[in-house]
């Protein structure tokens, strides 16, 4: 009757065992920090102890070969202590600043650039895309790679008016919750799903499928004698929830899926309150492997912002100051009917004053 003990519900390991001694000693007693060069921070404790952090960008998708190489670098330079940031950067925690140049050299030889601090573009928070997601309207890693190759100077320098946060999500589910980013790149489906009526009765439960639709656009229907569904296309907002529960309702569309660009969001409370990103470009084509239209659009917005914003002004704060008409004028982005909200509370977004610039 002996049953092997099966461990469950132990939770994550206690973080305390992973903190370097200098952090254990100065925990909660840090006095200030500085950024002596891009990608390097020094945190000074009340005790006078100094902790040096070297930050490197990663593509988020990492092979265990690379993680083992990071572990070796951590052993060589920082007694084995290492962490990641909320934006997929890897950080090495050193007590000896004389080791920083050699660590930077090793990281760069491995292919991981040091940067992402201060008034820079840090790594792009992003989702799975075609690498591993069922509802992706585009790839994530490929668009992010293409963007970061062009935005690279802003990762390794700190030459922007303020920090600029770029995020990417490959569909409206927004696993990357991109909706409060300076620049959000969002994959969009633009057509209602097509239905494989032969396959559907064999692989899907109709009631589950019907209830999966957030707008009630899916109804049971008999098609060629099969129990299937029909979709009220005007009610569909292309979210893909139905495809999640039933692979016979196909949301992905090679011809019409694409990418939208949103601007001016932030989560920090600094100066202005946190805000959502707003639509800048409703649709750009899916054009792998380098997505040139998307890259060009984002680089243009970054450049116009860098040339026009005041010091410390985030992208959304700059737009709030100059106004949306001037944003569209300066960036040359056309304003269309798609920019005007027509969902719940849309009226709150209409301009209801004559405070206009002529």
């Amino acid at each position, binding site marked *: 009757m002996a049953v092997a003990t099966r461990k469950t519900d132990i*939770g994550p390991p206690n973080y305390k065992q992973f903190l370097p001694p200098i*952090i254990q000693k100065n925990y909660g007693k840090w006095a200030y920090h500085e950024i002596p060069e891009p990608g390097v921070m020094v945190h000074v404790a009340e005790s006078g102890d100094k902790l040096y952090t070297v930050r490197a960008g990663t593509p988020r998708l990492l092979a265990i070969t690379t993680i083992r190489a990071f572990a070796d670098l951590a052993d060589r330079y920082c007694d084995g202590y290492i962490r990641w940031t909320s934006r997929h950067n890897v950080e090495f925690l050193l007590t000896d600043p004389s080791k920083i140049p050699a660590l930077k050299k090793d990281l760069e030889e491995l292919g991981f650039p040091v940067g992402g601090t201060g008034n820079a573009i840090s790594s792009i928070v992003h989702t799975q895309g075609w690498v591993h997601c069922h509802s992706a309207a585009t790839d994530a890693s490929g668009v992010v790679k293409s963007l970061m190759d062009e935005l690279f100077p802003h990762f390794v320098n700190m030459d922007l008016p303020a920090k600029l946060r770029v995020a990417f999500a490959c569909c409206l589910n927004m696993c990357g919750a991109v909706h409060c980013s300076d620049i959000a790149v969002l994959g969009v489906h633009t057509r209602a799903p097509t239905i494989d009526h032969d396959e559907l009765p064999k692989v899907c439960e109709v009631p589950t499928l019907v209830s999966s639709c957030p707008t009630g656009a899916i109804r049971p229907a008999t098609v060629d004698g099969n129990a299937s569904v029909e979709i009220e296309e005007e009610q569909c907002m292309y979210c893909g929830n139905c495809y999640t529960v039933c692979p016979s309702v196909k949301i992905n569309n090679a011809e019409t899926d694409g990418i939208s660009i949103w601007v001016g969001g932030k989560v920090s409370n600094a100066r202005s309150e946190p805000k959502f990103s707003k639509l800048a470009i409703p649709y750009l084509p899916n054009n792998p492997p380098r997505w040139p239209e998307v890259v060009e659009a984002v680089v243009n917005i970054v450049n116009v912002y860098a040339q026009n914003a005041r010091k410390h002004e985030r992208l959304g704060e700059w737009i709030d100051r100059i106004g949306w008409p001037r944003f569209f004028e300066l960036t040359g982005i056309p304003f269309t009917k798609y920019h005007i909200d027509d969902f719940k509370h849309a009226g709150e977004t209409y301009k209801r004053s004559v405070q206009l610039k002529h």
Partner: protein
Amino acid sequence: MSEKNRATPLLDELEKGPWPSFVKEIKKESERPMVRDLLGLLERSYEEHIGHWKHGGLVGVMGYGGGVIGRYSDLPEEFPEIAEFHTYRVNQPSAWFYTSDALRTLCDIWDRHGSGLTNMHGSTGDIIFLGSKTEALEPCFADLTEAGFDLGGSGSDVRTPSCCVGPARCEWACYDTLEACYDITQTYQDELHRPAFPYKYKFKFAGCPNDCVASIARSDMSVIGTWKDNIQIDQEQVREYAAGGTDIEAEICEMCPTGCITWNGEQLVIDNSECVKCMHCINVMPRALKPGKERGATILIGAKAPIIGGALLSSVFVPFLEMEPPYEDLKELAEAIWDFWGEYGKNRERVGEFIQRVGLGNFLEEIGLDPVPEMVAHPRTNPYIFFDEELEEDEDE
């Protein structure tokens, strides 16, 4: 097909350029048949402009309802090694601190059981093990728990909580985000592993109003550090910043959202009664200014991404809460919310949407919080007030 490397000209294009390449990362593990098939499938997506994954299937480890995301290819004949390609969410340590030994342990486990590919980290914060077969799930889980790791959340449960670097390396942390995150995660293991809510429930712990974990945008329960008393000023250091080229008038005083800072060239004066704790002046002059000493957190509820009823930011519930272990007040609030939302929330209705449906006023009454003006941007502008009198009469019957 999976015996040797297939040509991937489109993906190869993404090995070029200065930014680290995910294609190079995938190829580092391509001695595995599974990874060769993944490259083939991905190249196909790049050729056809469409994904080739199906969601779903009830896969997981015994006794858990979450932590594993089932994933199947829609081209199983052509790419048999990834016909099943499931993802684990492994609960990360607070603030993503590791030792090299812990990382090697995780790599060894994933070497034995899966693709050798990871995400460091997933959007919610977990360590993501990307791609394994169904038969590998339980043995991999056994190895993980033996090494002291456990799975994170998925589906309609408490999702893996996450936190900023906090007091481990930040002078602005107004409470211990690492401990709060760890304590809450351990307390709610059952809620995390066994989905029993209307939908997901996320906690994110940010140490100050800079909110480096985006809690106000991304968590149902946002715990954001703040303070009540005066910003600590080192006047000598302010003068140093001024001497070093910081334009105190333009960069500090004029950019303060409430205009509560003045500078006469010698002394910086802050009217702390007007300060809204935005962090701007502290961010610009970290050597001179620090948050006050009476520290705690603001608790906000209800953020979410657009699906279903539109995106929401969290809104204020408790303007100031002391954040000391064992975090009884926070837990009491979370559990009161789960009781009410759990009973009346619709399937796949996030708590932020639920609050909008039932009304914040009613919601507060149910969970036993008094309304305070800090909870709203402004009072209502419409006169359609549902007065309580009738309800009270109903209750008397």
